[in-house]
């Protein structure tokens, strides 16, 4: 028997989303094409009642939403499809560093949180960049450098080799306390940096669960 898409399995969720969007983002509308739910239209950036800017977007919901996170596309062709504007050639927006997902979209967050935080951050950032040439929240470096930059303040080191060792442990399916701590102390992990490594491991697993597997390699997690 073929699996059913989420909007048929969880019709109540779909209906409540439609209602929420109608109330909060009425210029966006849902459509279902080939068993896939899309939310499209003008994503307005509003300062009070004033529309400061708008982007034409389309959000594609995964087959098993809400287990996984939707993907966001700019469909007006306004943002150049280049790395420096954080866009894939397909028009998909690179909203966030996957490693950071648990910070910006923690467990239990709603779809409206997704629109209000990472999606709005991205498009406000694009508009701000057009005016000033700067990103209001900064930007992650491209590729593996982002992993170094993300972990450096958390792990208290900028040593790429050390961070790389941590990452090898964090990205394992599970971690064991009897392993040597990646900090280089030669102590067992359970007697050294277990707490932080465990937390980062959980965050990494969260990203794995939430982001469509095919996207992980594209986004630098694997």
């Amino acid at each position: 028997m073929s699996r059913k898409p989420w909007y048929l399995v969880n019709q109540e969720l779909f209906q409540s989303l439609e209602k929420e969007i109608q109330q909060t983002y009425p210029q966006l509308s849902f459509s279902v094409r080939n068993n896939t739910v899309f939310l499209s239209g003008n994503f307005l950036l509003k300062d009070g009642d004033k529309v400061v800017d708008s982007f034409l977007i389309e959000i594609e919901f995964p087959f098993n939403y809400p287990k996984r996170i939707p993907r966001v596309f700019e469909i007006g062709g306004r943002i150049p499809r280049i790395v420096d504007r954080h866009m894939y050639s397909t028009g998909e927006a690179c909203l966030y560093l996957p490693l950071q997902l648990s910070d910006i979209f923690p467990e239990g967050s709603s779809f409206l949180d997704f629109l209000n935080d990472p999606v709005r951050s991205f498009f406000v950032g694009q508009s701000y960049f057009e005016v000033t040439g700067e990103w209001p929240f900064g930007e992650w470096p491209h590729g593996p450098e982002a992993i170094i930059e993300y972990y450096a303040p958390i792990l208290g080191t900028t040593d790429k080799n050390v961070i790389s060792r941590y990452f090898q442990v964090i990205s394992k399916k599970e971690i064991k306390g009897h392993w040597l701590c990646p900090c280089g102390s030669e102590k067992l992990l359970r007697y050294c940096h277990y707490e932080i490594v465990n937390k980062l491991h959980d965050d990494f697993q969260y990203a794995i669960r939430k982001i469509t597997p095919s996207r992980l390699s594209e986004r630098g997690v694997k």
Partner: protein
Amino acid sequence: MTKDTDYLYDVLNSQNLDPDGPEMKALQKHREKVEAILRKRFGSAPTIKYGGSKAKGTMIKESYDLDIIEYFPHDDVSGGETLEDIYNNTCDALSVEYLVERKGSALRLKDKTPDTYSQDFHIDVVPGRYIDGNKGDVFLYRSTGEKKRLKTNIDVHISHVKDSGVIDANRLMKLWRVRNNIPIKNFALDLLTIDLLKNKKNLLLTSQLEYVWTEFRDHSESLSIEDPANPFGNDLSEMLNDSIRRCLKDMTTSTLSTLERDGWEAIFGKVEKTSDKDKKASLERIVATIARPSKPYHE
């Protein structure tokens, strides 16, 4: 962005219908009223939803129509036995509250109160019937022309426009059509624009428009359109007859000359431009409201 592209986005911004503004509120109110009328008459059988530019994301303030589609299941007769019955019964139901003008396949709603009689509400109701249980393709009644029914698919139309990646160009072409009173249907203009720009998505918006206009001027005789929902079944040639081709050629010749001589503002007019300083300040206020900001990334 270049200054000209920047200007075109200001034009587009000036054409956004504020969702909290009076126009959208009025449309929303009518949408609810129309649905209530149709539900009262036909029950829960028909699928009632937005079609047209609202669903496609191509609405502009200067000429905004709302299409409401009303499609009955293929095996349901609550709307009538035949397509013509569905069309007529829907017209009758709406006539209680509206002055209804019969168009090709749609019913145009106008005011029937004495003081504002015949005032256009910019709303078309399009009745039809799904051809099978998949709820994709539909048959619409045609009140004019030789063929009495038309096979189409609103979802395919919506996808065709939305997935084109050139909606901003579509909206500006629509504004250009309205401003110059060009007798081409929006649907035909959308199809032409999308087809001509299918490999030009990486052009700036200014270049996209110039390209489309140049094609209209230089190759008006060879332009063609086909219905993406029924490419071999629906003959759209009348939407692009000789008179319309001539008009497109004349108007684009004039537009391109104006553009070369006087620039973009001579085509789309002055728009109130937000200064960069004001825009930056507004964006910073928005930035401050984001609970969990995130930085963009790329592998």
